[in-house]
C-alpha cells in the first residue's frame, strides 16, 4: 500500500471555510476587503496621476472625467491619494495587529500553559497595560518621537496585545486539560512541542477572529491619530489625515469630495472587516455544527 492511494478527507479548517462561504454578509465583507486591497496595492496601474503631484492651477476641482474624485487645495488628485492612503491605512492595521498577536499569543500561551507564578506575573503585566489610556500614550509618544507611520504601528501594537493575551490564556487553560495533551506528554513531547504542535493549532480559531477584528481597530486608531495630526505626516496620505485636511468649515460646506470618500472608505472597511470577523467566528467555532 502506498501513501498516494490513501483516502483524502477534509480537515477541520476546510470544513470551517466551507461554512464561511455560506455566510453572505461575511462574503460581501471579504469581497469588499479584497477589492480595496487589490486597488491599493496596484494603485500606480489604476491612476495616471502622481501621489504628490501639485497642480495649483487646478485646486478644488469638482469630480470630473479628468479627476474622478476632484482635487484638493494643492490640486492633487483625491482618487489617487485615496488609493495610496489605503496602502498606509491597511498596512498600519496589519502590522500593528501582527505585533499585538505575536506578543499576545506568546505571553498568553506561556502563562496559560505553565501557570503558577509565571502566569501570575504575565497577567499582572496585562492588567498594568490595560490601565494605559490609548490616546494619551499615543499622544505622548508622538510628541516625543514625532508623528510617523511606524510610531503609530508600534504604539497600537504594543497597547493592543492585552486582549488577545487574555483570550489565548483562557483557551490554553481549557485545552491543556484535554486528554490529547496528556497523551502527547506520555509520548515524550516537551512543553515547547506541545504548545507549537497541539495547543496553538487548537486555539487558532479565536486568534484569527481576534486578529481580523484587530485590523479594523488598527485602521480606526490610525485614522484617529492622523486626524489629530499625530499619526501619518503629510504629504504621505492616509485616510485619517485626508479627513483632517478637510476639516475646515469651508471644505466641509463646499468641497464634499475631499471628506466623504475617505470617511466612507474607513466606514466600509471597518464594517466589512467586522462582518468577516463575525463570519469567521461562527464558521470556526467547533461547537456550532452546521
Amino acid at each position, binding site marked *: 500500500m502506498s501513501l498516494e492511494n490513501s483516502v*483524502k*478527507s477534509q480537515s*477541520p479548517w476546510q470544513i470551517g471555510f466551507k461554512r464561511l462561504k455560506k455566510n453572505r454578509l461575511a462574503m460581501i465583507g471579504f469581497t469588499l476587503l479584497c477589492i480595496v486591497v487589490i486597488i491599493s496595492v496596484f494603485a500606480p496601474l489604476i491612476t495616471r496621476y502622481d501621489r504628490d503631484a501639485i497642480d495649483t492651477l487646478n485646486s478644488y476641482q469638482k469630480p470630473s472625467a479628468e479627476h474622478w474624485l476632484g482635487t484638493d487645495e494643492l490640486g492633487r488628485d483625491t482618487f489617487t491619494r485615496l488609493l495610496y492612503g489605503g496602502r498606509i491605512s491597511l498596512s498600519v492595521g496589519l502590522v500593528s495587529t501582527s505585533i499585538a498577536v505575536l506578543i499576545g499569543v506568546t505571553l498568553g500561551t506561556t502563562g496559560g500553559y505553565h501557570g503558577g507564578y509565571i502566569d501570575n506575573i504575565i497577567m499582572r503585566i496585562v492588567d498594568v497595560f490595560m490601565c494605559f489610556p490609548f490616546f494619551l500614550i499615543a499622544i505622548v509618544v508622538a510628541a516625543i518621537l514625532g508623528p510617523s507611520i511606524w510610531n503609530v504601528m508600534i504604539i497600537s501594537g504594543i497597547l493592543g496585545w492585552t486582549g488577545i493575551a487574555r483570550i489565548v490564556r483562557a483557551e490554553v487553560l481549557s485545552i491543556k486539560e484535554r*486528554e490529547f495533551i*496528556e*497523551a502527547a506528554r*506520555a*509520548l515524550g*513531547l516537551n512543553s515547547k512541542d506541545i504548545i507549537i504542535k*497541539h495547543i496553538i493549532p487548537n486555539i487558532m480559531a479565536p486568534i484569527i477572529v481576534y486578529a481580523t477584528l484587530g485590523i479594523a481597530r488598527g485602521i480606526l486608531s490610525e485614522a484617529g491619530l492622523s486626524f489629530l495630526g499625530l499619526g501619518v505626516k503629510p504629504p504621505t496620505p492616509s485616510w485619517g489625515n485626508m479627513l483632517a485636511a478637510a476639516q475646515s468649515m469651508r471644505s466641509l460646506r463646499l468641497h464634499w469630495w475631499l471628506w466623504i470618500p475617505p470617511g466612507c472608505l474607513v466606514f466600509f472597511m471597518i464594517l466589512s472587516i467586522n462582518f468577516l470577523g463575525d463570519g469567521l467566528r461562527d464558521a470556526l467555532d467547533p461547537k456550532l455544527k452546521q
Partner: protein
Amino acid sequence: MSEYLIRAKGIKKHFPIHDGIFSRTVGHVKAVDGVSIDIKKGEIFGLVGESGCGKSTTGRTLINLIEPTAGSVTFEGKVIYDVENKIAVSTKDMQALRRDIQMIFQDPYASLDPRMTVGEIVSEGIVKHKMAKKKEAIKKSMELLELCGLRGSNVNKYPHEFSGGQRQRIGIARALALNPKFIVADEPIAALDVSIQSQVLLLMQELKKKLGLTYLFISHDLGIVKYFCDRIGVMYLGNIVEQGTSEQLFSNPLHPYTKSLLSAVPKTHPREVRERIILKGDVPSPSSHFEGCKFYSRCAYAKEICNREIPELKEIEKDHLVSCHLVGSGGEL
C-alpha cells in the same frame, strides 16, 4: 528481581485545596495515599474500585505523568523517582523512558487531537523519538492501524470521521507506535458500548501475546477484570485494600469492601443465589483525616480497633494481600 517490570512503593499523590483570597492551602485531597504495586513482566494487573477512589491518579502517578507527593517507582531496575531519597530521572531521561511506557486513555473523543490527521497522531511519537523519518513514520503508522484492525488508508482522515471504537483503536495504535514494554490502560473500554468493548479487549489480548506487553488495566467493571486480568488490586479511597490473583479474589474475597463489591456484580444465571451486601452511608471525603481504617464508617463488621489503628496490607496466602484488622488475626468475619 528481574521478574518485575515495574515496582511502585508507597506512592502518594495529594492535591492541595486552596481557599480564601490569598489561596492558602487549607487541606489536601489524598487521591492516592500510599499504593504499592509490583507488576510482573507479561502480566495484566487490574486495578478496580468505585469512581473517585484514585485508580486513574494511581496509573498516572505510576508513570510519572503527574508529579508524585511521595513514594518511589522503579522500572526494569531503573529508578524513575524516589521522593523520599530525592531521586528523580532528568526530564530528558524521562522522555526517553516514555518509549517503553505508554498509555491508553479512557475517552477516545478527548484523547485524539482534532486538528491532526490519524497518521500524524499515530506517527507523532515515532518522529519525536527520531525512530524514522516523517514519511516512513506515516508508513509505519499505516501498519500499526492495520494491526489494530483499521484500514491503513485512513491515515489522511481526521478523528471526527471515526466512531468511538475506531478512535480507541487509533489510541491503541498510537500507544504501540513506540514499541513499549508497559502500557497503562485507563478504563480503555468504559466509553465504548458493549459489543465494541469485547473487540477492543480481544485486540489488547492479542497484541499482548504478539508483542509481549505488560498492562496495568484500570477499570470499574468487575466482570471484565475477572477474565481479563491475572492479578487484581481493589482500591478504596486512595489505598489498595485487597490484592490477589483473579481467582483468589473472586473465589475467596476477604476484605469486607471487596465482598460488597463482588456482590454487586450482576448475576450470570437467574437461579444463582447470592447475598447482596449493601454498604451504608457514603464514601467519606478523600480530604478528611483518618485515624484508623478508611472503611470503618461503612463496614458492617467494624470493631473498636478499626477506628484506632490503620490496618496494614498483610499477606494472608501466597500473592493474596488484605488490609483489614479482622482478617487472619483470629477474629473471623
